[in-house]
């Protein structure tokens, strides 16, 4: 067999088992393999050595797969028939043996080298991973340490293992401090029971994490508020192993929140709790009461505060409120009542107690007594304000906040109605006959349209002749459910929400119309300050006079002294001037109740003055005026006469009072002693005056003694 054929045979074997990517020249290698083969088969050659060389050459050229040695042995075996003699056959066997041995040896070398290489690679890769891990760990540690939140790791027994810098700063403990501490040592006195129950659940593996707001005591004793979130780390078997706490410092936020919540629940002017907080406390008091728990609400409303505000300005008004708040809070302290400011001059006190422990009426009287002492108001003379208090007291069980407040409101209303400066306890029986301020406000619109208003008239009698001097139109609300309601019940509310304008217009029209068909010499109507500001007011007056075809002098406009005192704006003064120029007469009502400014008498062309009914209060109780009172009143009347004003005494109920007002020189009297208010009586011949006498015909007709207890309607003057 030629060298060429042998060479071709080698090349075929190489192609069968070689790596096609090795980029070797198979033909060239085959040629060298053929040469070595032939050289090894010469008679003197060391055939085995040549075989080993062949084996090595194959292995070095990557022919290492088991099939490669098989292919090589086959090449030599295929060559055997061409050999011819025994010696060369023996040479060929030696060569095959050498080939196998040489290949195996070279492959072994190679295997060891490769294995070492791959192990090295594996270990290098491991090192790289370890390096990356350690870098990553270092990075992680830095991150944890620099994190703005506190981070701590503890074992399941509650020992602290690690704590980052933030946590150390937050709590003021060093890592060493904390490593010696147990988690339980971070109990705060105000932790609820649930805090440590939640913790116990976590370390027992019953839960995997929890979050809560928790406060800690710092090493320096200060309190740190935190948002705490704790996670459980389990071991591979799922058993609790570690706990990781992430702690966010929210002390600042918490402080701010508390401040905000204080602002939201407190009145900025007086610092007292506001309506929100008060209602919250009231809700709480009735939410889950014991069988003997009582709850009481004292509804306090200042008397005459509007006047202080109007006459002395809001700044003084505010100072008065502050002083009142202090006084009330101080007075309530002993009873433990919570005093709050609801709005304006409305205060409220909440008293919760066990049955028989406290008497809310007593507390209310104490509060009133506290206000009796003049208030010191910065930059002002001592100011005195009165107050009325409505009290409701009942068992906390089954009570309802809204109903309690409504009842207290009703009681307050009753207190105001009974003459101010009093305490009235809520009487459930009376409740059905009362309207709350809210209900009134709701029903005011449309009052005129619904035809629920009516006027009654009370004569003003000339004290010298007994003749009717005029009649005062008094307003009544014929409430569909409540029956006739006096103006005290609704006029103040109507003035607050402008419902007074249509009501005032109706009164004007009605009174003028009634005047036209009666035999009265004149009619008095009450005008509110809001009406004076109404641009329609003068037109309304003219129209009403025209419609009724009565003389302007027959209409008398009553304006209360406190309103007149506050007429700082030129417009209402001009309006009144115009009225007078038209011929309408001007009456100052309720003179002497407030800070009577005699100078105010000069500002407008008044025709008449009505002394406030309050002057007769003491005499009504059966006591005569003191010589001083008498003298002052007499002087007032003289003063009025000196500027040509007619003086009327209001609220005259008894013969003694009639005598008293005559003594001080009053010209005209008004009150039950002379006549009760009555609906208009249409005179068939709208001509002459009735036979009014000094003795009140109505009182006689009723046959009742005029010195019985005064009814509220006597006070009514609108």
């Amino acid at each position: 067999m030629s060298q060429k054929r042998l060479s071709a045979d080698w090349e075929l074997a190489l192609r069968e088992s070689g790596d096609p990517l090795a980029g070797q020249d198979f033909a060239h290698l085959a040629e060298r393999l053929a040469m070595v083969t032939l050289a090894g088969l010469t008679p003197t050659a060391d055939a085995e050595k040549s075989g080993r060389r062949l084996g090595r050459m194959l292995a070095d050229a990557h022919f290492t797969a088991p099939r490669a040695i098989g292919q090589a042995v086959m090449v030599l075996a295929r060559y055997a028939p061409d050999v011819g003699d025994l010696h060369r056959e023996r040479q060929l066997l030696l060569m095959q043996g050498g080939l196998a041995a040489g290949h195996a040896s070279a492959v072994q070398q190679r295997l060891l080298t490769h294995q070492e290489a791959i192990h090295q690679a594996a270990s290098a890769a491991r090192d790289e991973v370890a390096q990356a891990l350690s870098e990553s760990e270092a990075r992680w540690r830095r991150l944890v340490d620099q994190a703005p939140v506190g981070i701590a790791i503890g074992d399941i027994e509650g020992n602290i293992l690690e704590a980052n810098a933030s946590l150390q700063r937050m709590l003021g403990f060093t890592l060493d401090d904390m490593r010696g501490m147990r988690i339980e040592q971070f109990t705060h006195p105000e932790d609820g029971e649930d805090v440590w129950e939640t913790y116990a659940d976590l370390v027992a593996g019953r839960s995997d994490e929890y979050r809560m707001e928790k406060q800690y005591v710092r090493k320096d004793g200060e309190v740190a508020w935190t948002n705490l979130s704790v996670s459980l780390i389990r071991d591979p078997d799922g058993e609790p192993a570690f706990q990781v706490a992430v702690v966010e410092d929210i002390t600042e936020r918490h402080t701010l929140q508390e401040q905000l919540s204080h602002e939201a629940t407190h009145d900025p002017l007086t610092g007292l709790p506001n309506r929100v907080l008060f209602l919250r406390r009231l809700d709480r008091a009735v939410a889950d009461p014991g069988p003997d728990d009582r709850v009481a609400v004292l509804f306090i409303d200042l008397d005459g505060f509007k006047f202080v505000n109007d006459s002395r300005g809001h700044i003084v008004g505010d100072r008065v409120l502050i002083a009142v708040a202090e006084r009330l809070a101080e007075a309530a302290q002993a009873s433990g009542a919570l005093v709050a400011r609801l709005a304006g001059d409305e205060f409220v006190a909440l008293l919760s107690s066990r049955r028989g422990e406290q008497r809310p009426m007593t507390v209310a009287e104490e509060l009133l007594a506290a206000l009796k002492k003049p208030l010191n108001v910065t930059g002002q003379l001592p100011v005195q304000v009165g107050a009325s208090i409505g009290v409701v007291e009942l068992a906390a069980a089954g009570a309802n906040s809204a109903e309690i407040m409504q009842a207290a409101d009703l009681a307050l209303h009753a207190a105001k109605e009974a003459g101010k400066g009093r305490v009235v306890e809520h009487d459930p029986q009376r409740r059905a006959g009362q309207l709350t301020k809210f209900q009134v406000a709701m029903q005011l619109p449309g009052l005129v349209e619904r035809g629920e208003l009516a006027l009654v008239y009370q004569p003003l009698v000339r004290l010298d002749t007994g003749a009717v001097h005029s009649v005062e139109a008094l307003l009544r609300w014929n409430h569909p459910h409540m029956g006739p309601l006096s103006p005290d019940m609704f006029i103040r509310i109507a003035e607050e929400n402008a419902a007074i304008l249509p009501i005032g217009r109706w009164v004007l029209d009605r009174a003028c119309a009634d005047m036209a068909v009666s035999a009265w010499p004149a009619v008095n109507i009450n005008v509110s300050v809001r009406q004076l500001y109404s641009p329609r007011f003068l037109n309304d007056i003219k129209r009403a006079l025209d419609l009724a075809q009565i003389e302007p002098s027959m209409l008398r406009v009553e304006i209360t002294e406190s309103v007149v005192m506050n007429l700082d704006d030129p417009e209402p003064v001009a309006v009144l001037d115009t009225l007078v120029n038209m011929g309408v007469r001007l009456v100052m009502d309720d003179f002497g109740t407030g800070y009577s400014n005699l100078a105010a008498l000069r500002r407008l062309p008044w025709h008449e003055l009505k002394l406030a009914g309050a002057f007769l209060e003491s005499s009504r109780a059966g006591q005569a005026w003191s010589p001083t009172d008498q003298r002052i009143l007499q002087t007032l009347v003289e003063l009025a006469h000196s500027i040509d004003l007619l003086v009327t005494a209001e609220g005259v109920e008894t013969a003694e009072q009639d005598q008293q007002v005559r003594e001080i020189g009053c010209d005209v009297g008004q009150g039950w002693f002379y006549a009760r208010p009555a609906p208009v009586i249409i005179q068939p011949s709208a001509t002459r005056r009735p036979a009014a006498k000094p003795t009140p015909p109505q009182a006689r007709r009723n046959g009742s003694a005029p010195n019985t207890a005064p009814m509220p309607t006597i006070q009514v003057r609108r």
Partner: protein
Amino acid sequence: MTNPQWVGDDIDLTRPSVSRMYDYYLGGFHNFGPDREMAEKAIAGWPELPQIMRANRAFLRRGVTYLIDQGVRQFLDIGSGIPTVGNVHEVAQELAPDAKIVYVDTDPVAVAHSKQLLEGNTGAAALSGDFTRPAELLQEVQQLGLLDPQKPTAVLLNALLHFVPDEAKPAELIAHYRDWSATGSYLMISHATHELHPTEQTEGFKQLYRNATSQMRFRGRDEVATFFEGYDLVEPGIELLTRWRPDEASSTQDAERFPGWAGVGRKP
């Protein structure tokens, strides 16, 4: 999955590695017991496996030779495995000494080994990277500075995509590499297919690989064709491994015995 930015994967030599099994199929000794054990099981089920691997390597050789002829001097070989005996850089640099090759593999051992072998070779480098995270991988390549993205680069995905599941959306991943590479760049793919063999055999094979570091996903010719979106396939298009531009050293005989599709595309 390797994440060079963070904690590296731990190295688990008890799990068979695709790249070391491949080495074993080719008669290499860069492997460990678990690799050999599983490779033997594979061969028992599919005795022609070593030949199929060789056919794949022969295609790789012809493909790289073709690309060098087209003037390509940059190669990004993803899933390069253990650079056993001879490799892309040897073929390429023998034909064009200025050729640059970057090998990428997820197997940290393969990468470490490649680094050892490439020590002193300024035109070739190996790095750890994951084909399925192209942004990170390309950033690593960029940082390496060996390849110039302005110049044509051949992206080699040999015997890789059948380890990428459909959920990873291989076509979309390839698009990342296509968009990164310059006009005139190439994509080279070889991919195992089930289309020429009984289902039992391919299924058995899939089962076998279930425990290895990568699972197998055989794909048909049409599926492989979708991977070339945005590329113009060069002659002869997608062909069986041994039929793709055979040369005098290769045989196209029994081409069906080598169940893999091969193709090369050019980015216009």
